[in-house]
């Protein structure tokens, strides 16, 4: 009835500390109103609920165990039969093509007009068929090179040491020139052989003074992908490319002025493992001299990183999918449990700045799930690697991967980030929907279902699904770099994601940001 600021009438009997002039104050120390305090409060809320701690431990354990099961279910039985070619930097590569070459010692240049590329038996050539000039350190597969080429669908390209690719013009330039000066090579293109445009100057990894220079033709196989519900099959058909070269001119000091033709990287035709016919049996290339400085060369194969091998980094983290489920439950419950029990009203009475409460919750649940995820991923990876090795994924085809080298640390930290972002997403959706059932279902469906549908839907639809939904974040677990200059069917079932690792994780980050913004907006506007 009476407000505490107006002094009551029974002044004389009040104890000395409650003087009539001052309002009532609690004997308790007032809490300091700061964000650190809020964080501590939220942290206490988390760790004092025993079942949540249990879920966190279960999440980590399930991630490790399922990763282990996933690894033991992946078997590689082709090891040993496949020849491994490694680039100077260790990348696994394809290096087979028809090479018409002469020695080139020291500085010099090679110029050519590519007057046409054709496919096998008059068919149109593969989009990434290659015909042009090359300076290569030797005819040994995997050795360092610089090549300048015309491709049917991708214009003029300058490529070197397998992983590097520089685009020239995509217009009708047909004249190519590659000059060597010391350790540097420069590529030029021209539409008419008179006006030359520089494409790039590059420095290959390991080019000796005495190198080989000349013409080359290569084409990747013709792959047809059949994908329908219930299965995907990729069949490689035979492809060859035939290119007409004109005005071939090689300048520089050469000990031997005659041309030699080599099928670089072609297997020994007497190899007993080689099938007698079919697409796996290579067709020998051919070289025809059609005039002075004019050649018709037929070849097959590819000069590019090998993108067909399995990704042993990605294969080591299959348990993260199950970990996601637990993290979603934790994240959602961290806020919806408060709504269910009415605790949220106490929370907001104690700290009326609601977005700060949400921020503290995000930090606590994000931090806790990141820590658990990091431990789980760091334990799962070496264990799964061990299992994969004993299942046939071993060197030289699959090099040993350590936890701190190459793509592994990114995948480990990325998996932990993914798990914690998913938990924060669930928290934000939980703040938005205020129901654990709704939040958990929505987030699980958003994160997991696209991946399942991607197995079944046709490739273009599947790729968009894995670009637009939070499932894109699983790209962070990829250990294989996908190069744009290699035609490669990115199949979701072989663990390939259309986005680069960090961009994929950023998609999930964007979802989290939007969900958090909506949650703050709703917290401010609505009753608790």
């Amino acid at each position, binding site marked *: 009835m009476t407000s505490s600021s107006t002094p009551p009438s029974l002044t004389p009997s009040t104890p000395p500390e409650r003087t009539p002039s001052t309002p009532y104050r609690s004997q308790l120390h007032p809490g300091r109103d700061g964000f650190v305090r809020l964080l501590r409060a939220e942290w206490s809320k988390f760790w004092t609920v025993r079942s949540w701690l249990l879920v966190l431990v279960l999440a980590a354990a399930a991630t490790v165990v*399922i990763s282990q*099961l*996933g690894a033991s*279910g*992946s*078997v*590689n039985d082709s090891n040993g039969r496949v020849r491994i070619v490694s680039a100077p930097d260790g990348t696994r590569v394809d290096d087979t093509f028809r090479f018409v070459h002469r020695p080139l010692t020291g500085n010099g240049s090679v110029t050519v007009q590519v007057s046409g590329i054709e496919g096998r038996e008059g068919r149109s050539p593969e989009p990434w068929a290659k015909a042009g000039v090359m300076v290569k350190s030797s005819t040994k597969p995997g050795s360092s090179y610089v090549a300048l080429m015309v491709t049917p669908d991708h214009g003029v390209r300058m490529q070197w040491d397998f992983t590097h690719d520089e685009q020239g013009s995509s217009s009708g330039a047909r004249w190519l020139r590659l000059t060597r000066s010391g350790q540097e090579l420069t590529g030029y293109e021209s539409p008419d052989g008179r006006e030359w445009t520089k494409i790039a100057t590059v420095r290959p990894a390991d080019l000796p003074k005495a190198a080989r220079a000349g013409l080359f033709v290569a084409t990747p196989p013709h792959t*047809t*992908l*059949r*994908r*329908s*519900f*219930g*299965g995907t099959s990729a069949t490689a058909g035979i492809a060859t490319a035939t290119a007409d070269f004109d005005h071939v001119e090689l300048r520089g000091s050469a000990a031997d002025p005659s041309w030699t033709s080599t099928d670089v990287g072609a297997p020994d035709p007497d190899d007993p493992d080689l099938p007698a016919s079919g697409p796996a049996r290579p067709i020998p290339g051919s070289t025809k001299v059609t005039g002075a400085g004019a050649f018709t060369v037929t070849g097959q194969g590819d000069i590019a990183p090998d993108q067909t091998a*399995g990704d042993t980094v990605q*294969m080591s983290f*299959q348990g993260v*999918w*199950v970990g996601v*489920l*637990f993290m*979603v*439950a934790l994240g*959602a*419950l961290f806020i919806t449990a408060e709504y*269910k029990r009415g605790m949220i009203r106490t929370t907001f009475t104690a700290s009326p700045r609601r977005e700060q409460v949400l921020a503290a919750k995000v930090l606590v649940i994000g931090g806790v799930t990141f820590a658990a995820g990091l431990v789980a991923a760091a334990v799962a990876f070496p264990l799964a690697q061990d299992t994969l090795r004993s299942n046939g994924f071993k060197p030289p085809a699959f090099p040993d991967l350590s936890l701190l080298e190459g793509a592994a640390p990114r995948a480990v930290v990325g998996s932990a980030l993914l798990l914690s972002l998913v938990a924060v997403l669930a928290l934000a959706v939980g703040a938005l929907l205020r129901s*654990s*059932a*709704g939040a*958990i*279902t929505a987030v*699980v*469906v958003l994160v*997991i*279902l696209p*991946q*399942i*549908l991607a*197995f*079944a*839907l*046709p*490739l*273009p*639809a599947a790729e968009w699904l894995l670009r637009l939904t939070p499932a894109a974040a699983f790209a962070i677990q990829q250990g294989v770099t996908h190069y744009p200059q290699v035609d490669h069917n990115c199949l*979701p*079932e072989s*663990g390939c994601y259309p986005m680069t690792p960090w961009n994929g994780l950023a998609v999930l980050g964007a979802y989290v940001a939007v969900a958090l913004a909506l949650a703050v907006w709703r917290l401010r506007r609505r009753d608790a």
Partner: protein
Amino acid sequence: MSRLSALRPLHAEWTKLRTLHSSWWLLAATAVLTLAVGAASVSAVGTGACPSAADCHEDTVKLSLTGVWLGQATALVLGALSMGAEYGTGTIRTTLTAMPHRVALLVSKAAVLAAMTAAAGTAAILGSLYAGRLILPGNGFTPEAGYPLPSLADGPTLRAAFGSVLCLTLTALLGLGLAALLRDSTGAITTGLGLLYAVPLLAGLLGDPNWRDRLERWAPMPAGLAIQATRDLSRLPIGPWPGLGVLAAYALGLLLVAGAAFRVRDA
């Protein structure tokens, strides 16, 4: 006691489920999401990528029914909430005081839930097939190219449609069983979603075809959805009806276990 004592628990459960907003929302979501995902999948697939339309070997009926993958999630939630919500709010104690026969209670809950899900599922499946009929010919899947329009007069299509409705219904019962066993809707939903989605996901990512087949044969969702196949039946890891049987075994088995636990445990 009224004469209709056997119908009383049914009536009570019907009233409970009918008067909750969330039930109608979830039923509507099941129907709409199933239809939407089905229609989106059908419109995303064309014959353009294949050498000729007949070479696509697309199972157009199964494609039209893709939405069941998503519809199962909401059906599961509906099933889990129909039981879990009573535990969450404590209504279960009132319910059990009024209706001490626990098995009858669980059976009537399951019956009402199954009827409602089946009704929504039928609408969703018929809608999906109709959407398929409308969209498929425009994408090159014409009867001339060997893709007859989905029609219930066709035996396998009827089996796929009926089976998909059963799939949705059984998933709802799976949710009910889990919630009755765990006495908590959140736990039931998380476990159920894991069982439905995480297992086929792992199966899809496994490199070893033997393991993949094993998982697809014994996990509830991929096995149950085998009922949707109308072509290349010999390539399936498990036949349509045995597959649905696996899902039914999961759902009904869980209900049995939950019923037994329900009888002996406190509420």
